[in-house]
C-alpha cells in the first residue's frame, strides 16, 4: 500500500466536503422559492443532508490537518482559491429543471463515490461514507425521477431539460479527471480509481437520460479547475459572499 501524505489526505477531504458544502448552499437558495411546497421541502431536506455531510468531511479534514481548525472555520473562513469543489456544483441554479439536472449528475457521481468509499481502508472515511450513502440513495432516486418526469414531459419542460443538459454536461468530465491527490488516495486504498467510477456513473446516468428522452451532447470537452482550485468560475465568489458574510462581518458570532 502506497503512502499518502497528510497534505494529500487533507486536500482530498476538502474536495469531498466542499462539493457537499457548495451544492448544499446552492440548493438551499431555493428555500421558499420552489415551484410547489412539496418540492420546496424536498430541496431543503436535500440541502440539509449535504450540509450535514459537510460537517463530517470538513471536521475530519480539520483533524487531519492538525491545526485546530473546525469544520465551521474551514467552511466560513477560506476564500475562493482555497475551495476544492468541482465546477458543476457552483453553477447557478437556473430554473427548477436545471437545478434538478445538476443534482442528478452530481448525485450519480456521489452515489458511486460513496459506495466505494464505504469500503475505504481509512476507518473514519468509511464510516462517513456509510452514513452518507443512505441519504444519497434517496437523493438520486428523487432527482432521477424528476429528470425523467420533466425530460419526457411537455414540449416546454423537455426543451428546458435539453438546454440544461447541453449547458451542464461539459462539467461532468471534471468529476472523473484524476491528479496526484486522487492517485495517492487511490493507491493507498482510501478512495476508488476515478476511471472505474466513470463506468458506474455512465451505467446509471445513460438509461435515465434515455428514458427522459434527452440527448447527451457530443464531444468530450470538460471544464476543469474547480477541484484543484486552479480556476473556479466567477459564480463561486458570489456564492461565498452570501454564505460567509455573517462570519466575515461578525467574527466568531454564534447562536
Amino acid at each position: 500500500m502506497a503512502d499518502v501524505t497528510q497534505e494529500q489526505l487533507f486536500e482530498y477531504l476538502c474536495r469531498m466536503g466542499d462539493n457537499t458544502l457548495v451544492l448544499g448552499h446552492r440548493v438551499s437558495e431555493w428555500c421558499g422559492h420552489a415551484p410547489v411546497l412539496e418540492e420546496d421541502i424536498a430541496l431543503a431536506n436535500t440541502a440539509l443532508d449535504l450540509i450535514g455531510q459537510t460537517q463530517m468531511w470538513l471536521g475530519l479534514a480539520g483533524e487531519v490537518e492538525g491545526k485546530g481548525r473546525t469544520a465551521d472555520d474551514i467552511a466560513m473562513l477560506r476564500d475562493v482559491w482555497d475551495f476544492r469543489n468541482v465546477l458543476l456544483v457552483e453553477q447557478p441554479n437556473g430554473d427548477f429543471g436545471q437545478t434538478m439536472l445538476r443534482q442528478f449528475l452530481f448525485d450519480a457521481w456521489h452515489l458511486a463515490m460513496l459506495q466505494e468509499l464505504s469500503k475505504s481502508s481509512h476507518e473514519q472515511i468509511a464510516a462517513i461514507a456509510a452514513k452518507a450513502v443512505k441519504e444519497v440513495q434517496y437523493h438520486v432516486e428523487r432527482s432521477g425521477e424528476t429528470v425523467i418526469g420533466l425530460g419526457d414531459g411537455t414540449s416546454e419542460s423537455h426543451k428546458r431539460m435539453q438546454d440544461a443538459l447541453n449547458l451542464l454536461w461539459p462539467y461532468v468530465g471534471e468529476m472523473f479527471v484524476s491528479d496526484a491527490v486522487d492517485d495517492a488516495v487511490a493507491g493507498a486504498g482510501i478512495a476508488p480509481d476515478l476511471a472505474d467510477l466513470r463506468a458506474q456513473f455512465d451505467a446509471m446516468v445513460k438509461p435515465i437520460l434515455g428514458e427522459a428522452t434527452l440527448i447527451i451532447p457530443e464531444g468530450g470537452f470538460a471544464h476543469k479547475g474547480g477541484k484543484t482550485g486552479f480556476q473556479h468560475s466567477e459564480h463561486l465568489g458570489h456564492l461565498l459572499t452570501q454564505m460567509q458574510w455573517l462570519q466575515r462581518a461578525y467574527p466568531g458570532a454564534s447562536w
Partner: protein
Amino acid sequence: MKPAEAQIWDWLDAVPDPEIPVISVVDLGIVRGVAWDGDTLEVAVTPTYSGCPATGVISMDIETALHDRGIKDVRIKTQISPPWTTDWLSDKGRAKLVDYGIAPPRAAGGPDCCPRCKSTHVTRISQFGSTPCKAQWRCEECLEPFDYFKCI
C-alpha cells in the same frame, strides 16, 4: 452510589424526541450505549440523518435529564458507525407512531395502510416531508395526508 446502567436506560426512555415527542430517544434507536468512565457517564448517540437539526437539541435534552437525576458529569459521544437504521426503532416506538398518525417504516418502501382509517389505498405525495426522517403520503379513502417514517 452510581446508578446502574439499566436505571439510566429507563431514565433515557423518558426523554422525548424533540420532533416526534410521542417516542423517546431510546425508541428511536439513537442511544447506542451508556457506560461509566470513572465518575463520568458517557452516552453514545448516533444521528438519524447527518444534517438533522434536532441532533444538538437531543444531546442537550439527554444531558439535562441526567443532570436532573443527579448525575453531574455527562459526556455525549457522537457515534456515526454503524449508521443509524430504522430497524433500530423499537416495537413500542412503532406502535406509538401509528397512534400519533405517522406510518412506521417498512422495508417495502412505503406504508401498508393509512394510520388513521387503515385503508390500504394510499399514494405518495413527496419523497420528503416535514423532517429529514419523513415522507408525505395521502390516503385515497379518508383523503387525509399523513407522514410516513422513511425506511433507511
